[in-house]
């Protein structure tokens, strides 16, 4: 008669203090493993033929007691776990999950062999289970373990990149805290830059950013329009794209040299706000070009086709359909340009930034202290000079300048991200 239910059989063994005629119950445990093996096989052969091969979820467990009738706390997992796989064509197994034994008899023989000469301790359990066809095999389990390990390691590396930096940045902030105030921003550097605030360099940076933006934004946006709307798939377009990639990859110090050669000397600007801004503009152009191109590419082609079908020209389509639908992406690029331009130091080193300029403290002249032909201070260069060139500057002043520069860039980026998220949430296609 076939078994309808899975059964778990539990037998007991107590090497110390049980008599030879134990039958495997808790009160009369087996005395030795040999006897246990023989009786278990015998028992299952005689009474429950199905169990002989361990079918379904059947399980045979051998529990080691301290003394007859006295259990000890069981481990959660059996200490020894072996497998039987009756349905499979198996040769001599060794009881592991990968190579199970074919039936109960060989299983018990195997257990004897494994445990020969090894004393079972109280609380140990030997469990024989059927290897389920669909349970995870050892290979499968190793796979999952490796997977988990990989995930943990990768996450740790990622966290290892991000967390120390956040720690450093907050350290900068705490060191800068004593000087951070409104007055720090609006006061000029004093006493050979060892005291006072950062107004002159801050205004200089705003100048450079504004003028470079005025140069780079129109050229960059139009170039992006050209690349996405006008350029065909030909060598010229490939060349333009290559030029954009290379322009972005040119080292900043080479941009500085270019600025010296082209704007300071050749164009005759001299070292001035104008020359520095122009250098920054060329340097940051790729940011605007690529983001404009991507923003335009995100406008579905069907919008354009619908417009062309109404008889609109190419430029009319761009002006009325493409640009309004991509203005957010373009704006993101423009804002990113601002953040790049505000932080750059190398390109303005020899084209217009100056160590120190006396700037009026009050009045209109303090808001517009530089003309296009003047050299100016800049926040990034100021940070470089007060931390490496000038002696006697207090740490708080140095950290304060770093935090303001970094905070400025961060804020600009935050605006860019907010614009992007907002526009994505309103996207209609």
């Amino acid at each position: 008669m076939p078994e309808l239910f899975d059964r778990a059989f539990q037998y007991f063994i107590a090497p110390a203090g049980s008599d030879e005629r134990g039958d495997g119950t808790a009160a009369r445990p087996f005395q030795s493993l040999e006897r246990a093996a023989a009786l278990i096989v015998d028992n299952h052969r005689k009474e429950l033929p199905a169990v002989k091969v361990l079918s379904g979820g059947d399980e045979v467990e051998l529990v080691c007691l301290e003394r007859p009738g006295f259990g000890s706390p069981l481990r959660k997992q059996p200490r020894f776990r072996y497998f039987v796989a009756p349905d499979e064509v198996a040769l001599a197994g060794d009881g592991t999950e990968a190579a199970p034994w074919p039936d109960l008899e060989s299983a018990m023989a195997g257990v004897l062999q494994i445990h020969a000469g090894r004393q079972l301790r109280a609380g140990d359990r030997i469990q024989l289970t059927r290897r389920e066809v669909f349970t995870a095999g050892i290979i499968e389990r190793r796979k999952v373990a490796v997977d988990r390990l990989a995930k943990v390691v990768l996450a740790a590396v990622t966290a290892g990149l991000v967390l120390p930096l956040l720690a450093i940045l907050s350290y900068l902030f705490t060191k800068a805290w004593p000087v951070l105030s409104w007055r720090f921003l609006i006061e000029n550097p004093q006493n050979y830059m060892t005291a006072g605030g950062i107004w002159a360099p801050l205004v200089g940076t705003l100048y450079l950013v504004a003028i470079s933006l005025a140069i780079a934004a129109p050229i960059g946006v139009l170039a992006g329009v050209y690349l996405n709307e006008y350029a065909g798939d030909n060598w010229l377009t490939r060349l333009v794209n290559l030029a954009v990639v290379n322009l972005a990859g040119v080292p900043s110090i080479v941009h500085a040299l270019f600025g010296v050669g082209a704007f300071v000397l050749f164009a005759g600007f001299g070292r001035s706000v104008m020359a520095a801004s122009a250098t920054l503009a060329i340097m940051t152009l790729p940011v605007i070009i690529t983001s404009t191109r991507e923003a335009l590419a995100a406008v579905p082609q069907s919008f354009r086709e619908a417009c062309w079908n109404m008889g609109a020209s190419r430029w009319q389509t761009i002006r009325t359909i493409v640009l309004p639908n991509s203005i957010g992406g373009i704006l993101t690029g423009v804002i990113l340009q601002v953040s790049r331009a505000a932080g750059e130091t190398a390109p303005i080193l020899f084209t217009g930034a100056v160590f120190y300029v006396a700037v009026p403290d009050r009045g209109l002249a303090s808001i517009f202290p530089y003309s296009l032909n003047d050299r100016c201070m800049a926040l990034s260069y100021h940070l470089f000079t007060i931390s490496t060139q000038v002696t006697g500057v207090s740490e708080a002043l140095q950290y304060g300048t770093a935090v303001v520069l970094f905070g400025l860039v961060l804020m600009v980026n935050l605006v860019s991200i907010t614009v992007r998220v907002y526009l994505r949430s309103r996207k209609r296609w």
Partner: protein
Amino acid sequence: MSHSMKRTLSVISESLVEWAIRICGWSAILFVFAIFFFVFREAVPVLFTQLDLREFFTSVNWRPDSRIRPQFGILALLAGTASVTILAMVISVPAGFAAAIYLSEFCGRKPRETLKIVIEFLAAIPSVVWGFIGYMVLNPIIIWATGAPIGINILNGAIILALMSVPIIMSVGEDALKAVPDGYREAAVALGASRWQIVYKVLLPAAKNGLLAAALLGVGRAVGETMAVLMATGHSVQIPHSFLDPVRTLTATIAAELGEAVEGGTHYRVLFVIGSLLMIISLVVNLTADLVVKGIRGKQNA
């Protein structure tokens, strides 16, 4: 104004706008050539006359200010750039790839968005602030940890450069992984592969070109970086013997000396020669990266 005149006007203005767009589009090419032209123009007068090119590349003596005999050997500067860049890449390429794989394959959508924003912020930190961190924060930490007499050295510069180039390596690498068609992943899942097996056996081989390009762009960024290495790697012109030696890189040399060099003098022009060299290096790196990426696109289209 008659209707036809209005029409003519609008046609004219439209063609003007279109030409403006074309010219701006082509201007990128113009700018790249202009950069070449103007940097070379300042360099050429010494390039084939006063400057002994063999000495330039093989001598370790960089003595531009010497009254008796100025020497312009950049071998030590090249060694400085190479050592800082290589160490930086040893740190940042595996870390950047690991982060890219984590973000693109293992991470949920919400944490991914957050992490990407954080990393975007990291990419935005100005290089002079990085230099400041190296100079003020990392310097004492390195002295404390290694016992080196001075903490402004190759290791410091390399750590800073690694952190600076991780964002670009990561974002380009993630793009490369994302560019692998989902069909590859689905086929692997159907064969019973785990996530890590998909990454290891399917995605990495399939995205290897994009990942190579990511590493190359990281190298480009590290070689060209100026302010951070100027502040964090020290100022001694020497062939380094250990990671704790201070060195001077090509970029830092230009930044440190151009202000003092006499305009039009030999020293000044030699700095432009170094600039041209940097320009050529970055061009080669970027073109290679571009070709490598084009390589995958070509294959996918076919």
